[in-house]
């Protein structure tokens, strides 16, 4: 487990960008954090780290956005997903294993996520500062501070 303090939104993106370098291409990354904690900023940074320069926005309505980079990146938003049937009909299970999956509002589908995943918790410390906790990425320790 690793804890990093981010001083700003840009810093969160930089941390995510560096973190992206350690990915193998088939990870499931579950993001946790309140509104404004930086889940989308983290995803934007991670996408940049994978060489994706398209504008990254939260797929609240589309449920999933796909990006082509060093690996395929599937960006999910589970805010409106409340049951297994909902999750199944997003095609979520069809995506896993075919790229990096990064999931906002993982809280809603936590029980259906595989144990083998990376958890990233973003917590407000002050207006700009966030505490970023990375769990389950032990093999990447020290690679993204």
């Amino acid at each position, binding site marked *: 487990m690793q804890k990093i303090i981010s001083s700003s939104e840009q810093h969160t993106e930089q941390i995510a960008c560096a973190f992206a370098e350690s990915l193998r291409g088939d990870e499931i990354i579950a993001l946790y954090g309140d509104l404004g904690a930086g889940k989308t900023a983290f995803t934007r940074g991670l996408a940049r780290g994978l060489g994706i320069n398209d504008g990254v926005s939260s797929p609240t309505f589309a449920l999933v956005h796909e990006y082509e980079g060093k690996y395929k990146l599937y960006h999910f938003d589970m805010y409106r997903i409340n*049951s*297994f*049937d909902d999750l*199944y009909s*997003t*095609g979520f299970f*069809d995506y896993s294993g075919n790229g990096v999956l990064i999931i906002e509002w993982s809280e809603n589908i936590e029980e*259906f996520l595989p144990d083998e995943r990376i958890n990233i918790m973003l917590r407000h410390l002050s207006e700009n500062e966030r505490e970023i906790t990375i769990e389950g990425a032990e093999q990447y320790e020290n690679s993204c501070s």
Partner: protein
Amino acid sequence: MKILAVDTSASPVSAALLNDGFLAGEFYLNTKTTHSQTLMPLIEQLLKMTDTSLDQIDIFAVNSGPGSFTGVRIGVSSIKGMTMPLNKRCASVSTLEAMAYSMPYTDGIVCAVMDARCSQVYNAIFRLDNGSVERVTEDKAMSIAELENELSYYEECNIYLVGDGADICYKAFGENLPTVYLTPQNIRYQHAYGTAKAAEKMAEQNKLVSSDELMPFYLRLPQAERELRAKQQKENK
């Protein structure tokens, strides 16, 4: 009679042409490509290479479920699209049954099992006897533990596992079910050939449907079922 069969129900994609019961051609891929991009070129090439035109096809067969949400929809909507203007008959084949039809070369029990994630599987049991396939159980969704329990009733027979859930089940059963065998790769996964063979049988039994009637077929998973019951109970209070 010509049967064009396709499968996109899970990770592999395949298309086969059966010509009066004879397998004239089959394309099969199991890469990470998207079926919506591969299926149509496969069908086009298959028809071209076998010198067959679409209107010569008598029956269009598809594995209409169980399977992956998008995969099943890709196969079913492709076949719907091809049959609607031509007004041809369709065979809505169970993916699990198609797998059993890929291997009736031996006697025993075939357990077709697909990985439905979260330790759940789709499965159906078939009895193979001298080249015939007889369905023993309906297509069902259950946990791997429940399947192990169910298979213990057939312990006097050899049980052959097919499908993309075969591997995880084989490992999970371990020593508990000594007569369970893992089939080799070339017959383990669903192939459109099996879909075509199942369709041939359905045609004999007058079980074909129209383009309109062809629909995706999904099984609700036990986990979703439990959730739904809990929700209903809450609402009734």
